């Protein structure tokens, strides 16, 4: 039977897992959005930067990137700043290395998803906003973004699950999240099965929760695509 002390630790680890996953995903969203917008029009310098970035970060395991950032991160940052003549020492924690690695890798995937969604918004939507004199930022926020969200949501939800599970793998760089605590508990109690099963339950639970939440969000983004009245006001049809 699992000892409560260790189960508590698993809980702490689970919180860490969620923290890393959320921050990584947000970073990936930011990177993905920047690249998606930048590569909407075909401009050679941007394309070269994007293709290089995407090729590297989708062609290498995220665990390897995390190791690289963790072990060689301080050195790389120091070298980078020394190019501009500054002497900088930054300690890269496992947390920072994990978030940076996952964010940069999955940013590449999200960029493709977001760009594809933007390109699938009918061009007439952009044109209608233009002829109605809607200012560009307002048009992007209120007309384009909701439609991009509707198109990209399934793929973005999948990506969230992938990021969450990859967080488990990244524990191998020494991050104190759920897998690390499960391993610790297993080593001490010699009862690995139950602790790893608990970890499985955590991930399955998160997957189920994600499914429920994304269904709700999907319903909201699909408003207008179901041919029913929005509010129950107009009964006289």
């Amino acid at each position, binding site marked *: 039977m699992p000892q409560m002390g260790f189960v508590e630790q698993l809980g702490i680890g689970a919180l860490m897992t969620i923290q890393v996953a959320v921050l990584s995903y947000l970073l990936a969203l930011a990177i993905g959005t920047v690249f998606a917008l930048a590569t909407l029009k075909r401009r050679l310098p941007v394309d070269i930067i994007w293709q290089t970035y995407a090729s590297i970060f989708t062609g290498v395991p995220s665990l390897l990137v995390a190791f690289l950032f963790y072990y060689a991160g301080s050195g790389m940052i120091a070298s980078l700043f020394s190019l501009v003549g500054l002497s900088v020492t930054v300690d890269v924690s496992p947390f920072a290395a994990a978030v940076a690695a996952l964010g940069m890798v999955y940013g590449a995937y999200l960029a493709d998803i977001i760009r594809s969604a933007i390109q699938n918004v009918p061009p007439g939507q952009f044109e209608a906003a233009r002829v109605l004199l809607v200012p560009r930022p307002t048009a992007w926020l209120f007309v384009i973004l909701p439609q991009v969200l509707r198109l990209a949501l399934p793929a973005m939800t999948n990506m969230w699950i992938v990021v969450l599970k990859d967080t488990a793998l990244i524990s191998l760089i020494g991050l104190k999240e759920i897998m690390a605590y499960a391993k610790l508990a297993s080593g001490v109690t010699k009862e*690995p099965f139950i602790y790893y099963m608990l970890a499985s339950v955590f991930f399955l639970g998160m997957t189920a929760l994600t499914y429920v939440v994304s269904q709700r969000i999907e319903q909201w983004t699909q408003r207008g695509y179901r041919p029913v009245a929005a509010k129950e006001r107009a009964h006289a049809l």
Partner: protein
Amino acid sequence: MHYDPILAWQSMPDLLAGTATTFAVLLPVLVLGLMLALPIALARLETGPRAKAAAGYIAFFRGVPSLVLLYLVYSGLPQLSIVRDTFLWTFFSNAYFCAWVGLTLTHSGYMAEIIRGGLAAVPTGVIEASTALGLTPRQTLFRLRLPMAARYVLKAYQNELLIMVKSTSAVSAITLVDLTAAANTVFDYTYDPFTPLVTAAAIYWCIVNLMRTGFTLADRKLNRHLART
């Protein structure tokens, strides 16, 4: 951090040994995973308890990270006396065997979903026509439905394959020295993290891109009939 080409060259044997381990883990997983996924996918397409069991299988093995499964198989199963005290121990004490089991289970979950998607996309008219022409269900499945499904899901399979290649880095947790672990080992005794890790990254990159090229060629060959002349 500087890249040390001499060190890179010297560490090549170790890194290539790691690459060999990576493939030794990967290839059986791809074959076994595919074989296991097919009946699950077919069960999923039916209705009734078998479909529900298949759906549960897919949900479980797609929802649990491969690392957890590897630990469960390698550390967790030996806890059960049935594994520890019987002939099964010869298998489960072997790290390779555990890696194959763990990764196959994960891979089969994703492949079952991919195959299901492909089979569902085959137009029912084709299946009806083949039945009308007297083909048995088995013949229809292997000669018509699966080849057609394969063409539809080539892109999805490519994605899954590339993900699997990268997921093999998890086996470093259960004592197998794959490419990632090999790079870390070189770092351990040379104190240079940058060179071996970047070199390993380059090797992964080459493998992934070779596979991508292979898929592009396969796609062109398989979908020749769809090309506009």
